């Protein structure tokens, strides 16, 4: 196939996305401007309710904040893990890799139970803390933002770790020797050589983690609980309990729009990092 005709290979996916993704999305958008889900009459009521309400705006901010914190938390652990992976021998490498994909292999259903077990008042962490005499009373973890972020750190880590590992794998080990021989300390080597080169992977991971954490409806609901207020739960409640589909649609589009803006900003940053 010539270079000119190669675009045709993208057609099947493009058409499939048009039919199965864009079209439903357009219907969703149309619904948000309708009085009800049968699109009998048009109205801006849903959008007024969605955006003219401090509570919903707060939900948007909370949701974006949660995504950002999840990115931060996964990066804090994924970067060292990736560095150790880079320096490790073949066995440890394999162990880290398998650990990296493990969360993908446990069903979201059981994972929520696992986190209740770990974060609960009588859970693993509290038992450890009290056993070590660090705290005397149980520390609230379940149904707090910290607890939720900890859980999201596990759940979303593969999305951060895998692109990072791929990016670090492309670094020539001689570069590290070169830095060391030129007098670069470990810190300097990491900051000046490794991190800049890992940046595209880091940004790809950040985008995936952000999008996934911000929309992680089940984890937010079960581990975060009702005192934390995120947009996906609002969408679900409006659609499934209140049956206000126009409002649900408006909220869903708001959620998608705000996540997209951040994701686009990140990918712009990524493109810059690649070309810079």
């Amino acid at each position, binding site marked *: 196939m010539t270079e000119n005709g190669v*675009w045709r290979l993208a057609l099947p996916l493009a058409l499939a996305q048009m039919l*199965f993704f864009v079209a*439903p999305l357009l219907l*969703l958008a149309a619904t948000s401007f309708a009085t009800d889900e049968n699109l009998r009459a048009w109205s801006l009521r849903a959008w007024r309710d969605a955006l003219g309400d401090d509570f919903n705006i707060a939900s948007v901010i909370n949701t974006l904040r949660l995504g950002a914190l999840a990115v931060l938390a996964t990066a804090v652990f994924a970067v060292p893990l990736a560095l150790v992976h880079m320096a490790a021998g073949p066995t440890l490498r394999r162990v880290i890799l398998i650990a990296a994909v493990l969360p993908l*292999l*446990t069903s979201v259903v059981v994972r929520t139970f696992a986190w209740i077990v770990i974060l609960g008042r009588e859970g693993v962490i509290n038992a450890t803390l009290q056993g070590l005499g660090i705290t005397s009373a149980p520390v609230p973890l379940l149904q707090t933002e910290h607890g939720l972020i900890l859980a999201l750190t596990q759940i979303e880590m593969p999305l951060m770790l895998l692109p990072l590992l791929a990016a670090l794998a492309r670094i020539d080990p001689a570069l590290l020797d070169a830095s060391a021989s030129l007098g670069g300390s470990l810190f300097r080597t990491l900051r000046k050589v490794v991190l800049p080169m890992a940046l595209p992977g880091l940004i790809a991971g950040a985008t995936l983690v952000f999008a996934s954490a911000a929309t992680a409806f089940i984890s937010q609901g079960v581990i975060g609980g009702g005192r934390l207020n995120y947009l996906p739960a609002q969408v679900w409640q409006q659609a499934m309990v209140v049956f206000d589909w126009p409002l649900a649609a408006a909220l*869903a589009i708001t959620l998608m729009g705000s996540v997209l803006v951040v994701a686009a900003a990140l990918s712009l940053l990524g493109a810059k990092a690649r070309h810079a």
Partner: protein
Amino acid sequence: MHRFTGSDRALALLILALAGCGFLILVGPVIVVLVTSFTSSRALQFPPPGFTLQWYRELFDPARSAQIHIAAGNSLMVAVLTAVVATSLATAAALAITRSRAGWARVAEGGFMAPLVLPGIAFGLASLMFFSWLRQPPSLALLVAGHAMIAAPFALRTVGASAAGLDPALLESSAALGAGPWRTFRRVTLPLILPGVAAGAFLAFVSSLDNVPVSLFLASAQTDMLPIRMWGMMETALDVRVAAASGVLVAVAFVLLLAMDRAVGLARRMSG
């Protein structure tokens, strides 16, 4: 092998400590689930009062867990089809994007990634509304299509990373040797990007297998899906078979992962 100075040693220790914590965070919940699956109690309980294989026996009992087996079969079939569909679509698109220097390729790449940021429930609801509007009742094909939309971006990412490293000269020399486009794809392109394709298929498979939001709307009585069934079992009765089923899933995926890693160095190419 490097020898570190004092501050370097402190930094190295910090990195090791964080990596250790990260490892614990990754593995801890999975261990909790696996340990729980062997509990001798009748409900999910941790730490277990004792250990037994009873729940695995019950899970594999064709009479008592027939419905779980059917749901698992459905989920597996949907996941396999999703992986096939999503990976094929994504492979073609990835080749187009990496081989084109035009500006549209960058735009298209961004567009193809969009399904990742749409909340699953919103997408599920919108899909159901759309297909009902077209008078298409929920069916296996629609379910696979919905899953494939979510899975394709993952595959696009891994295949794209592999395809980016493909030397165009190889394709040209294949064409110069008289091979048609299909033969070139089968004999040259595919073998070279296979690791990326395999990784993409694996991610697509896993993302479909564990999908709740889209399945909730697009599944029907004929396509009872495993995660939704497990959700029900877990919610009302804390059924330990949920943990056992998860244990089986982990074990199967683990074996699959090792086999694929051995075959194509999967792990190194999990993502681009």
